[in-house]
């Protein structure tokens, strides 16, 4: 076995080929899919996907329903592209076509599972408001971490005892 063969084996052992769907760089873009709903309507689902820093992020619009600039949670942890549309309580799981211009899979809207095919129609177009939110997400000063027993809140609550206090317990999404 010559040196070149040994190097080739070393490369194959230590740097195995990524599976087709694992973080495909071709995912970035402006995607549109028709979503045929059970009520006969077929709204267009517009999704922008891209990478900010090391993180895949996305936002979506459904103009027909007045939905605009809502976030998409992007998961590329296995061979599939998984998108979670929290505002629509929907999940998509699919794969990129070999050419990278189509994203096909199933959209699960809890009451209906729909086969959809996204077509990439251009480059990613994140809205200004979306980018502002992503910047906020990167800013650790936006929130103070609480201990599980809420000690910091309790201390603040008592320190503000001469004021009217409004306590809001909320889900961020």
């Amino acid at each position, binding site marked *: 076995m010559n040196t070149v063969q040994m190097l080739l084996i070393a490369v194959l052992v230590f740097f195995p080929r990524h599976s087709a769907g694992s973080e495909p760089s071709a995912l970035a873009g402006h995607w549109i899919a028709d979503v045929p709903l059970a009520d006969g309507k077929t709204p267009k689902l517009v999704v922008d996907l891209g990478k900010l820093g090391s993180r895949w992020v996305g936002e979506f619009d459904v103009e027909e329903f007045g939905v605009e600039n809502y*976030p998409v949670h992007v998961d590329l942890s296995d061979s599939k592209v998984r998108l979670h549309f929290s505002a629509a309580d929907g999940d998509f799981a699919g794969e990129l076509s070999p050419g990278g211009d189509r994203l096909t899979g199933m959209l699960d809207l809890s009451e209906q599972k729909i086969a959809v095919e996204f077509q990439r129609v251009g480059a990613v177009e994140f809205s200004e408001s979306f980018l502002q939110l992503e910047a906020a997400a990167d*800013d650790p000063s936006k929130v103070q971490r609480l201990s599980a027993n*809420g000690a910091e809140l*309790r201390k603040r609550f008592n320190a503000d005892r001469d004021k009217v*206090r*409004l306590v809001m317990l909320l889900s961020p999404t």
Partner: protein
Amino acid sequence: MQQQVLETIDSKKLVAYAVWEPILRTDDERSSRKATTCMPDKRVRHYWVDTQEVGKSFQPAINLTTEPAWDVYLVYPPGQQWKESTPPPPEFLMHQLGERLPEAPALDGEALAKHLQQVIQSAQ
């Protein structure tokens, strides 16, 4: 909340605490930082807690049995203190939990603002 409540009450007698907690599967610290942008009022302190323990600790205070307290808005007048390990019951509350909290009113921003104004005025 920002427009209907906080912006209508021009008083330093009011403070608010937004406790962002993991209820839905997409809830995490990053999303809590994003959520702060919907309440930029300087009287609001924003907290993130990565367990549901704080929400659970508020359950007895509002007679909620089905889940950790979330989507709830609790009003405390001046003088009330948090002495025990569990929070004290609020003087007034509103929520978005539907039938899971049937005895308390559903969130109505204008009504909440009006109530807060009354509590502030009676404290002066």
